[in-house]
């Protein structure tokens, strides 16, 4: 192995270090100095990749959210069955990703809120990613178009709130237990409680077992 890390690897190490630090100490108390020390890179390397700490955190968020969005979209597309199953599969994947990397999830879902207006705007835009996965549920509802215009935003907010609550107390691993009720919560407005419960039950326990 070469002793000088390739730029892509350096960048990854910096982002990894930033995620761990931000998740543990919060954004305000994470300094560039701490990031370079933990990533074992020099300041020059850091500044080659990022203008400042804020840009670093935004990159962290963008990359993590980009991967998450791609994964939940894929889960949605590949899940056989009708919309309720597809939406449930997307939620399951979201929870799995959070459980797989709680530090990154905490840095992105909790700490971005304290990282200034650009990060807060990113978070808001991230919520919008759920819209195309939820909106087709309206077609299954006879009154679909009359459902509240803000329904998708509100449900996405509710889902992230559930995750947020577990992340701030360091209990991301409990998230899979909440999957069935979260599925029920999200599906009910579109397909009614009974069908929502049925689909949620189908997915019961499937978050903890390998697919």
């Amino acid at each position: 192995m070469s002793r000088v890390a390739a730029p892509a690897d350096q960048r990854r190490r910096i982002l990894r270090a930033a995620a761990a630090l931000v998740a543990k100490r919060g954004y305000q108390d994470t300094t560039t100095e701490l990031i370079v020390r933990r990533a074992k890179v020099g300041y020059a390397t850091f500044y080659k990749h990022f203008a400042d700490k804020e840009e670093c955190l935004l990159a962290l968020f963008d990359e993590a959210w980009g991967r998450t969005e791609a994964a939940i979209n894929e889960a949605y597309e590949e899940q056989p069955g009708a919309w309720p199953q597809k939406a449930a599969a997307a939620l399951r994947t979201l929870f799995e990703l959070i459980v797989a990397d709680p530090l990154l999830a905490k840095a992105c879902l909790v700490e971005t809120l304290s990282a200034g207006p650009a990060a807060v705007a990113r978070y808001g835009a991230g919520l919008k990613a759920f819209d195309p996965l939820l909106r087709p549920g309206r077609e299954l509802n006879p009154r679909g178009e009359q459902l509240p215009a803000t329904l998708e935003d509100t449900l996405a907010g509710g889902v992230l709130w559930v995750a947020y609550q577990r992340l701030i107390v360091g209990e991301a691993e409990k998230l899979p237990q909440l999957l069935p009720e979260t599925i029920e919560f999200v599906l009910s407005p579109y397909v009614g409680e009974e069908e929502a419960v049925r689909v949620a039950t189908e997915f019961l326990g499937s978050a903890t077992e390998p697919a």
Partner: protein
Amino acid sequence: MQDEEELGPLPPGRHGFSREQVEAHQRERLIAGLAEAVAEHGYNAITIGHITRAAKVSRRAFYEQFESKEECFLAAFEIVIAHMGELIGEAIAPIPDWPHRVTAGLRALLGFLASDPALARLCLVDSLTAGPAITARFGEAIAGFRPLLEPGREERRSPRPLPDSTEDSLIGALATLISRSIAAGEAERLPQLLPDFVEFVLMPYLGPDEAHRLAREAR
């Protein structure tokens, strides 16, 4: 400026106020000063200097009242939350039936947030980003809305109980949407969301048709 005149420092010496009165007064001014500074700069960017300048009191007076900017923020947060609780309590008190109590409570909440976007921001945006102690307090404060929703469980026709997390999810969903609207500078438009919120919150308890009917009524 008129305001500065009114907010000038208390003259030292013989102003006839007791020490307790002066201190209570200074505390209020510091809290108002913090709210002003937070509205202008956001919580994370402000220093104790911003607070004391806005309050026009000395740094020493600050430390007589609070140990840190965080403690001062929490004091401000508690006052606003208590005030909100009173407004909601007054709004729902005369209403006998549960669904209309929920509507009235939400109307009072959204009306208050729209009427004072700076305090709305302090409570629902800055408190989420002001560090773990304040975030934890925020979680407790919004859990205070549970008792407004829980009686809805008795209104359900289905014998199947709702999941335990229902109220938390509903409240968290609304809080997230409200906080985003405020962060986007749209606090004034929150009351327009009342029918959506009523429908969303009542649906699990009353079913979609009744929730929709009550939402239309709330327009």
